[in-house]
């Protein structure tokens, strides 16, 4: 848990830092005083000193963000996984190393708060997961959207997953961006983001038409769910998806995770063809 880890980290460092901090501050203040004394006698050195201080500040910044913290974070995460999960269940992981056969293809948002492994407790091997801004599935387009297409093709045709799940979520920045795009506006600095979230444009239009009375946050919530429906529909534009759904070997579901309220809504897309009645 991040809070527990944070506390551990602080506790481990606490013993050495307080006195260390004081000594460091003393040394720093002595050095600054020495510099000030010098400059008061030789004012023309001011510019030189300023340049040197800028360089030093930059170096220290780099040292600080020399990402030793970040690396430590990753290392301790991996060590925990290795000792608590991998080595304790090595038979299963050995099997997985030979091949994966997940039953789920999951589309989730890249948002740091909504990893499907957390909220739905997917274990290694269970879910093939695509994460992008606002968990969008674009319609079939082999040039512009081959990334998503490749993932759907691989999961459905090669891995033969049995379920596709598209999970939207509360307070989605991508959906908020979609809702705030003005019609006919000039391209902005966030052009990649805008061009991407426009995949959900029909959801936005529907919400604007049908929910005019709602406040902005409620409109966004409705759009988060409606955009999932747009993605579900877009899934059917992939022929290999349609083929499996009609055969009843692939189910398509949408979901909305609300981390403000702690709720999870799940629904299914129903798509069938019946045998044709021949009129003759």
């Amino acid at each position, binding site marked *: 848990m991040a809070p527990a880890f944070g506390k551990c980290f602080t506790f481990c460092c606490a013993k050495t830092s307080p006195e260390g901090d004081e000594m460091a501050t003393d040394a720093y203040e002595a050095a600054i005083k020495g510099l000030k004394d010098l400059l008061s006698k030789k004012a023309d050195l001011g510019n030189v000193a300023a340049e040197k201080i800028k360089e030093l500040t930059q170096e220290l910044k780099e040292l600080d963000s020399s990402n030793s913290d970040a690396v430590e974070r990753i290392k*301790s995460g991996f060590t925990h996984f290795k000792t608590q999960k991998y080595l304790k269940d090595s038979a299963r992981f050995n099997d997985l190393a030979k091949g994966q056969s997940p039953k789920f293809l999951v589309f989730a948002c890249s948002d740091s708060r909504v990893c499907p492994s*957390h909220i*739905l407790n997917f274990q290694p091997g269970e879910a093939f997961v695509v994460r992008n801004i606002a968990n969008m599935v674009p319609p079939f387009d082999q040039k512009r959207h*081959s990334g998503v297409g490749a993932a759907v*093709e691989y999961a459905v045709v090669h891995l033969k997953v049995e379920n596709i799940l598209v999970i939207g979520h509360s307070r989605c920045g991508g959906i908020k961006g979609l809702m705030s795009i003005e019609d006919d506006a000039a391209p902005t600095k966030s052009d990649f983001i805008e061009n991407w979230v426009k995949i959900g444009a029909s959801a936005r239009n529907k919400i604007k038409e049908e929910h005019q009375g709602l406040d902005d946050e409620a409109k966004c919530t409705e759009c988060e769910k409606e955009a999932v429906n747009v993605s579900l529909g877009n899934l*059917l534009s992939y022929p290999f998806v349609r083929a499996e759904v009609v055969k009843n070997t692939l189910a398509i579901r949408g979901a909305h995770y609300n981390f403000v309220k702690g709720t999870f809504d799940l629904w299914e897309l129903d798509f069938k063809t019946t045998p044709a009645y021949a009129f003759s």
Partner: protein
Amino acid sequence: MASHLPISYDPSSSTSLHTQQLIFCSSDKVKDFEKAQLRIPSSFRRKAANLQTMASGKTPGLTQEANDFTSGENNTDDVFDDMKQRFLAFKKLNYMDNLEHFKKLADAQAPKFLVIACADSRVCPSAVLGFQPGEAFTVRNIANLVPSYESGPTETKAALQFSVNTLEVENILVVGHSRCGGIQALMSMEDEGDSRSFIRNWVIVGKKAKESTKAVASNLHFDHQCQHCEKTSINHSLERLLGYPWIEEKVRNGSLSLHGGYYDFVNCTFEKWTVDYEGSRGGKKEGSGIAVKNRSVW
């Protein structure tokens, strides 16, 4: 609590019943599927009488379909139950115990990492690297590829823009892994292949890694070539990241660091390295145009 789950059919019916809207699925109609679900019960009641008459003279085909339908319905209930149990377990064991933390997260996320990982079911960065909710903005695609700024498919670029410019993450970590199906597809791809394949159109983003692998490792067994390509491709993606002007600017001024990672799940090791921006500019190459530092294996 999860709200009432809309079910679009009546399990007690002896024949399968669908509205016209659900059968012929243009995307317009599908978007109205929730409305259609509400209409089904009333239309069912009206049609039920006629259908029962028809059903009594039903063909073997209809019987088969009804049987298939019923067994499909059991699987649906199982999956719904399964999802419900999974979510409630998360809520009880994680969410409720950390309510304060989740309330803060609900207001805003401030992850320090952007992680680009493969969609492979065995390599979720939250599982393997222990990222907790709020810590890592995560992109997952086939073979953890980053396309170049100027060209190529666009999905990943929006996430780069959002995480670097809006969330201002401090680290980007590109994580590759062993036995990657996407890299394998790249390595076994014919040059003149079926351009109707999505997989082909995507993994071709990593073409340069394949070429450089073939140049140095073509005498190795195919599996070892793939492993070489898996690692080289990470470095090529890191190099392409530096081609995004707003990323390069932040790396240059020290507010953003780029890292590569390789998860080998056969031996359970994790290798990590950091891009040395100064070294890269100074011309010290790794065969992929970037220099690296702080390499370690756990």
